[in-house]
């Protein structure tokens, strides 16, 4: 039963990801991404990790996705313009490389016996529940937990900095304040 469910959700997740890439309408893309997030959430559940399941749904599928849709609609950038592709030969090559990567991944997965548990042994019974996750975060993974916080802080600063109105910056584009050098292109 688990097995069937796994393949089903995995297939949905993949299909969602691919459809997101191919869709020409930004709204459609976002919705396909939502599909992918949902499927991934189910995969977490299959791995006996209810907490991650909830987080995945509420944060990714919920908050982040809503933000995406909001921005897309606010900017009115639903439609990707079908511009002339200047690198026509790039796409087939990219497909070939992607296929190559896929083959390698499959080979490693199959030959590498990725069905076996890692040498550390099976996961503990209570592995996925919030309490044990929390405990891990405060004991073994305390440092990474803190650093993640700093990374988020930096990201927030970035958003603020890059969106500040820059009053004096506009004058930068107007040339002629100083005699420009005698450089030629």
């Amino acid at each position, binding site marked *: 039963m688990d097995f069937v469910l796994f393949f089903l959700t995995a297939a949905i997740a993949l299909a969602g990801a691919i459809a997101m890439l191919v869709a020409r309408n930004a709204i459609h893309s976002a919705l396909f991404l939502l599909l992918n997030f949902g499927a991934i959430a189910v995969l977490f559940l299959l791995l006996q990790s209810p907490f991650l399941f909830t987080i995945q749904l509420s944060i990714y599928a919920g908050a982040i996705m809503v933000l995406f849709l909001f921005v897309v609609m606010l900017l009115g950038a639903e439609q990707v313009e079908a511009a002339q592709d200047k*690198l026509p030969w790039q796409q087939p090559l*990219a497909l070939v*490389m*992607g296929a190559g990567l896929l083959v390698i991944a499959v080979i490693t997965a199959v030959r590498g016996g990725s069905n076996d548990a890692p040498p550390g042994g099976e996961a503990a019974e209570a592995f996925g529940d919030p309490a044990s996750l929390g405990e891990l975060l405060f004991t073994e993974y305390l440092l990474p937990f803190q650093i993640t916080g700093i990374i988020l802080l930096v990201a927030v600063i970035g958003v603020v900095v890059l969106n500040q109105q820059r009053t004096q910056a506009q004058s930068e584009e107007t040339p002629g304040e100083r005699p420009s050098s005698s450089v030629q292109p």
Partner: protein
Amino acid sequence: MLNWLIWLIPLLPLLGFLLNVFVIRQERQAGLVASALVGGSFLLAVVATVMLGGMPEEERRVQTIAWEWIGTGTLSIPFGLLFDPLTSVMVLLVTGVGGLIHVYSIGYMHGDPRVVRYFAYLNLFVTMMLMLVMANNMLLLFLGWEGVGLCSFLLIGFWFERKVASAAAVKAFVVNRIGDAAFILAMLAIFSHFGTLTFYDVEVDGQIIPGFLAQVPNLLGQTFGPEWQTIAVATGISFLLLIGATGKSAQFPLFVWLPDAMAGPTPVSALIHAATMVTAGVYMMARTEPIFVASPATQSWVAWIGVLTALIAGTAALAQWDIKRVLAYSTVSQLGFMVAACGMGAYAAAIFHLLTHGIFKALLFLGSGSVIHGTHDTQDMRKMGGLRTAMPTTYWTYLVGAGALAGIVPLSGFWSKDEILAHAVSAGYWPQLIGLFIASLLTAFYMGRQVSLIFFGTQRDPHYHAHESGQAMTVPLVILAVGAAIAGLMNLPTLFSGMPAAHLLTDWLKPVLHEEAGKFNPLLALFATLGAVGMGYLGWSVYTRNAAKVKVGGQDPAYYYTGDIWDTLEAAWYVDTLYQRAVVGPFRSIGNFLAQVFDPQGIDGLVVGTGRFFGWVATGVRQLQSGYVRMYALVFTVGVVLVLSFMLMIAW
């Protein structure tokens, strides 16, 4: 006392350099300070040499360490100087001739707007050259080696308003880099086989750092390379050193930069590109002589490269019109003599010739500078003629220099050249002997030609009024002329049994080179003298008789006999052209190709003239560095696929 005295020798010119860069702004002061400090160096060198001579013969080697330059677990390189007989003669040459050239420069460079900078460079050069010859390890030698290259680069391009000057400067530096790369590889090889880079055992902080020259016998039988073709380690190292020497000492096939280097001021040509820097390769080979001796294979390469260079450059000198290019090719040719001498195992003879050549070639260059000065920057010999009356001092001193170069008895060049030829005879290098003998005949001929073209006949270009140069220039000429005449005394062969003061130099160098003096060969000396006099006269008479026919755009009188070969000679056997076609052209194409393919946003105007093939390929793939992120991601992915499949392939 010697221990700290020798530090002052390179420090004085360094002080001059610093003063000229940071303090001095006036032309007069610059010249005086620069000359005085180099002169001071010379005096110190004389004192040091005398003190060295006062020591017992086996102990004539002073090493002092300033600090440990590099000290890691396995590698210890001191920043230390060495003063032994070989170094002492080199130092005397560098500071002595260098000092005279500094004085001469005061007159020659008078009025040049950048003269302070000129003297700064010149002083830096002397410092670096002294570092080179006084280094007690390979790395410090390399520091000097690169340093003199740098100064040479700066001085060749000194008159950068002339387009040729900066092109020549770049050419010199780039060609030399080929030799330098080989030199670095040789250093790495020496280090990995001996674990040290110092020449001789030296004590640092109570620890003995071993020298590698004494360990060379250990290399015997050691080989490297694939099994089907093993190469002796000694051969590998010495061959790399040889490549390094061909770059710096302008040997075939890397000699092409030296004739172009004449774009620099003439005193620079005299000091750097004739008397001192270009001899660095020969000095280095003499210093690392045990490694060369350990490899007969390399030795024969050395000898043949020397002979070949002597011949090619000697023939090329026959067909030049530029007064300085004749001397440049002649320098290349004489360096070939020295290298050939090294290859035949006559290191002392090579050093002897190095010293005499340093003196008489400096004299010739300064003489040519005086001619150029007196004829208002005329360099084309077709526009000269009949200058002996207008410039008597220059004429007489030039005649002495030319005679010495041609090998006329008893001028210095005769003795040093004869020593090399005599060694070839006694050691049985017959084919090399014939090559060198022909080269020496050529020398006499083109010097006869040059003297005739410059000083005899009548002035062919009336546009200038020739005049003798001032005292700052003529006094050094006279001093050098005296030197060129009598320098042979330092190493006369034993002409008769019981002759006093014979082969002084060879004996002086014995602690370093362990060489016995060669035997005098009267028959050879006779032939050489007859040849030199005969060919010199021939060259003189052909061009004096046909003086009227020489004109710009016209053919050389010798063209009648040689035909089109003359063009080949004028182009120095097309070696330079070959490089242009076979190396520079494709190199530019590749550069241009890469620029177009990978980075069309930054193509340099320098890289023009793409080959058709590259152009064709470029249109197909030029968008690789197009600024498209997905393109970069694709290349990234290609890399990922390659790396992964490679790793997994090994694991299979």
